[in-house]
């Protein structure tokens, strides 16, 4: 990971990028190309499912979105630990955590909407209070709360610490979401790839398309994380400048000579 032009630790400010500009551009094009390829395979190349027919094609975006939500919240959790650890504390980790959480919320929201669109033709309902669906909705709202917490005005250090703790608490729900289909009887099917037997139940072109989806979404995630981090760093610099200006104005007001007030009851 490179940051430019500078990265400062311990409550300092971070400016710049996660990735060098040419790498970011390359990732953008790779992401676009892999998503086009995914659409070709997901909508035409892969055969329809023997039971679900064409409705199963939603899987090629639903499952990668869910996995990327896990990854994004995992990155948020790791960055939060690194922020809380005094030896590695840097605003960089706080900004990475916030940026990745926002992407995680985006992917979780997509997972819920896509799951609903898949559930309607297959289960006959848009929504069920099933363990997997409910814990995923809880995950969505937990990280929505985390993003709200980040917007509460505070010094960067106070915000960083409380958000890092909140992110770690929220992350507890991620393994619960993943294992919910094993722990409870659910309408949602059990894991197809990472099942308890570690024996994937998907093969051939379908498996290839699913992995292509995971790859395409992962490249997109890295690209968007870099872009979102850059925005967060710029906005933080802006807040610091505004604070410095406000302090300078207050200091100037305090040190400026006050006009003499007329003395009450003074005789000429």
């Amino acid at each position, binding site marked *: 990971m490179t940051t430019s*032009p500078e990265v400062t630790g311990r409550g300092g400010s971070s*400016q*710049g990028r996660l990735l060098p500009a040419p790498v970011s551009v390359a990732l953008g094009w790779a992401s676009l190309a892999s*998503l086009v390829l995914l*659409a070709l395979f*997901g*909508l035409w190349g892969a055969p329809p499912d023997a039971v*679900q*027919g*064409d*409705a199963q*094609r*939603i899987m090629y*975006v*639903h499952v990668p*979105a869910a996995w990327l939500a896990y990854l994004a919240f995992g990155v948020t959790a790791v960055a939060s630990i690194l922020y809380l650890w005094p030896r590695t504390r840097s605003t960089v980790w706080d900004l990475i955590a916030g940026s990745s959480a926002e992407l995680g919320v*985006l992917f979780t*929201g*997509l997972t819920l*909407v*896509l799951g609903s*669109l*898949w559930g*309607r*033709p297959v289960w006959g309902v848009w929504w069920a209070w099933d363990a997997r669906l409910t814990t995923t909705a809880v995950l969505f709202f937990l990280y929505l709360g985390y993003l709200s917490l980040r917007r509460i005005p505070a010094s960067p250090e106070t915000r960083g610490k409380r958000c890092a703790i909140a992110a770690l608490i929220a992350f507890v729900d991620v393994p619960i979401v993943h294992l919910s289909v094993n722990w409870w009887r659910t309408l949602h099917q059990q894991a197809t790839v990472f099942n308890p037997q570690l024996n994937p139940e998907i093969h051939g072109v379908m498996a290839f398309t699913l992995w292509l989806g995971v790859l395409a979404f992962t490249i*997109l995630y890295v690209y*968007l994380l870099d*872009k*979102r981090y*850059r*925005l967060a760093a*710029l*906005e933080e*610099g*802006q807040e610091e400048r505004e604070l410095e200006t406000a302090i300078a104005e207050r200091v100037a007001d305090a040190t400026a000579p006050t006009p003499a007030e007329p003395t009450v009851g003074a005789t000429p």
Partner: protein
Amino acid sequence: MTDVGYVVAAWSITGAALGLYALRVAQRTRRARRSLPSDDPRR
């Protein structure tokens, strides 16, 4: 709605959500860069 309708809706929503998010981040980044002083190296 047919199965194909659900599939088209799902893929369209995915493309729209990810595309609009990327555009929104790019737009906010441009605005934040414009607010930087002209001599700032991050511009």
